């Protein structure tokens, strides 16, 4: 049963808070996109169009009905991209509307072949921002999972390309930064020096270079690091957060923000990153600083590296990553979602405002148990979702985007 493929639905504009109707508590209109090609009953919605932004669930390399997985990374990439295409089409968009993607591989050796197929869906004038990562595990033994955001108004999509030599040359079909309305999506950046093409040996040196590269992209767009609303930090360390890398990375990262102004953040220990880098950082920033701010639960202190709560730009809120207390995945997941609810409540929102969720598991085998809790919190019209396996001590971590 189709929720809506409603191209006919005229989304006029946000209803004012004064005219809330029935059980509908959303200020910004949204459409839940559930294409015919997908099997019903998923714990998440394949796509949510909220205002002009289309949040697309992580798409894996399997047939969405039969669950069959093609052989070879080329066909696998095609499958994931075609799945994403179903969502785009049902939302009245095409690949030219895609503004940013996370390409999540289980084997970075597939980088080149993935690139070829992935790139063929875009261009020649438009490539989204992109972050490519190798995760220690993906759901359903997928070899590839692609998570993207689309933007409805192509006239407000524009590319940000710093002057030649200011940042390292692109290693694949992506652009350094992409504007979608007032939001800037910056590609995952690593610590390669644009002049020497070398990667510093130390994690501190790499982090410094990475943040400078991001700074060059932001500067080209007329922004600074402090205009960021959300950041993903990825790093390599066999001991996860407990290893030495994370602290060293943070000791440099924090220097790019005045205390108390760091964006929301979610950081993950992975198995491999492109090329020889050992940290990669992805920024989302806004030019609408008049409507930007933060809400922080009082039990969170002032962190030099993270909002600790949520950063808002207009009606959209990005939470920091939260992991929960407890012995079981269910207990931890519930605690994480309650913490997220605390932050949402401060902004006058609740779980029904969540449009996109990222769930990071220590072990993707916990997927079913996680899903059961996820359904408790999102019984109807659940958000788009991407689930990934990362190297961490805790069993789960959750991060969400919510819209009024």
């Amino acid at each position: 049963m189709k929720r809506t493929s409603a191209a006919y639905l005229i989304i006029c504009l946000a209803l004012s808070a004064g005219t809330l109707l029935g059980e509908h508590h959303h200020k910004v209109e949204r459409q839940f996109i559930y294409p015919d090609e997908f099997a019903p009953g998923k714990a998440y919605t394949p796509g949510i169009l909220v205002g002009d932004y289309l949040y697309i669930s992580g798409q894996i390399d399997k047939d969405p009905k039969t669950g069959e997985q093609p052989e070879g990374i080329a066909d696998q990439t095609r499958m994931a991209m075609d799945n994403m295409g179903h969502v785009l089409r049902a939302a009245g968009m095409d690949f030219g509307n895609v503004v940013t993607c996370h390409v999540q591989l289980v084997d970075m050796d597939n980088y080149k072949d993935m690139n070829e197929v992935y790139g063929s869906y875009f261009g020649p004038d438009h490539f989204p921002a992109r972050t490519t990562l190798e995760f220690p595990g993906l759901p359903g033994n997928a070899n590839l999972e692609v998570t993207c955001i689309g933007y409805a108004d192509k006239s407000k999509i524009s590319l940000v390309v710093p002057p030649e030599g200011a940042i390292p040359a692109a290693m694949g079909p992506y652009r350094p930064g992409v504007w979608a309305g007032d939001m800037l999506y910056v590609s995952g950046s690593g610590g390669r020096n644009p002049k020497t093409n070398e990667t510093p040996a130390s994690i501190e040196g790499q982090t410094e270079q990475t943040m400078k590269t991001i700074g060059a992209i932001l500067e080209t767009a007329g922004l600074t690091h402090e205009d960021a609303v959300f950041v993903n930090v990825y790093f390599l360390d066999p001991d996860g957060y407990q290893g030495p890398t994370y602290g060293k990375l943070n000791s440099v990262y924090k220097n790019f923000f005045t205390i108390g102004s760091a964006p929301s953040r979610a950081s993950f220990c992975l198995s491999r990153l492109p090329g020889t880098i050992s940290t990669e950082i992805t920024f989302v920033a806004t030019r609408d600083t008049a409507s930007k701010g933060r809400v922080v639960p009082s039990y969170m202190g002032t962190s030099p590296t993270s909002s600790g709560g949520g950063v808002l730009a207009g009606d959209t809120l990005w939470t920091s990553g939260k992991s929960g207390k407890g012995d079981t995945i269910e207990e931890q997941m519930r605690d994480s979602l309650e913490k997220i609810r605390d932050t949402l409540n401060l902004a006058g929102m609740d779980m029904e405002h969540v449009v996109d969720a990222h769930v990071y598991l220590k072990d993707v085998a916990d997927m079913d148990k996680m899903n059961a809790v996820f359904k408790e919190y999102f019984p109807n019209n659940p958000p788009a979702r991407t689930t990934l396996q990362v190297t961490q001590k805790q069993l789960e971590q959750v991060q969400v985007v919510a819209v009024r």
Partner: protein
Amino acid sequence: MKPRWIVISLLVVLAAGCGGQAPPPEAEGPSFKVKRQFIYPEEFPPGKPYTPGVLAGDYLYIAGQVSLDPQSREQPATIEDQTHMAMKNMGYVLRDAGMDYDNVVTCHVQLDDMDNYKGMNEVYGSYYTSGRYPARTTLEFPGLPSDSHVEITCVAYADKSKIEVVRPGEGATPAAMGPYSPAVWAGDRLYLSGQGGRNPQTNEIDPTTEGQTKQTLENVGTILKAAGLGFENTVMVNPYYLGHDNYAKLNSVYREYFDLGRPSARGSFCLSRLPGTISVEITFTATRNLQKKGRVLPHGRRPSHTAVPATIDGNTMFFAAKSAPAAGDDVESQFRASMEHWRRVLKLAGMGFENVVSTNVYLKDLDDMPKMTEVFREYFPESPPVRTTLQVIQEGSREKVRQEISMIAVR
């Protein structure tokens, strides 16, 4: 199957005419999460820019009541009769909200002459029959509206079974100088009386501002502890002090009590006199719902040890006092700039000016009151919040500050 709201919103959108026009406001006005009632007793002449009382959930916010007859504007001659007048005015609001004086949980008693303290006390105390006095803060301001000699601003709580006095052990805090309780619970919120720097053991007052501030906060800490709370539970605070130069001294001690970025919303004011011989008095409001407490910061706001722009306690948001001396020399420009700042903060919390239930406006010169009121009406065209207007001293580096506004908003 389409969710029903899509159909409904489509109809509304079509009815409103698509093309950028917002649907007309519904007759019943904004829909609030916490139910509220605007109390306008018949004893008050119509057309005030503020509402005499707003009941939001169980909390009744009462506008500052002056010592003038609400209809004839006549003021009785003595402080006793003046206090009776202000208390009776407040009584009308309580009555219309279905309450009486024993529902009152906290008051600010604002005098224009501290010499009237004793005379006011006798009358003020006589209105509370349960023996359970509200928390109280008594202050002398350099000016009150309409040349009133006393102005009383109170909060009442509908459910008497959830009103409870907090009394630290004998000798733990200075003995009360009048009819007030150290602190009063109203539901999950604790209202503390204004505290000064008297040492409870020696009954002495430190000659330095720093010493007084420290003793004041120690006294506050003792009361909070007796209620099972700590400074992290505080949501709103008003420090009052004498002498512009003492502000920095006060802050140098105050900041030691809060982690970076985690103090309460705050409004600090320089006054003309405080009770007894103290030169610092501090009033706190706290919550026991630490889990539902948080802070709101607009972009670019740096964390400090002394204040955040706004604190949220569940469905209630407490705002610091906002001045805007850079916006212009006139009170209108400054007041508008303060309100625009608060609009941003309200929006971050998912609220708007329609959520504001209580306001405190501090003017450098009460002659600015009509101009301030004009702008106030722009922001609150209907169902306005309660309001208390006071004159404070702005000197030294704050000389250009013509207004400050602090507010309470409820979802």
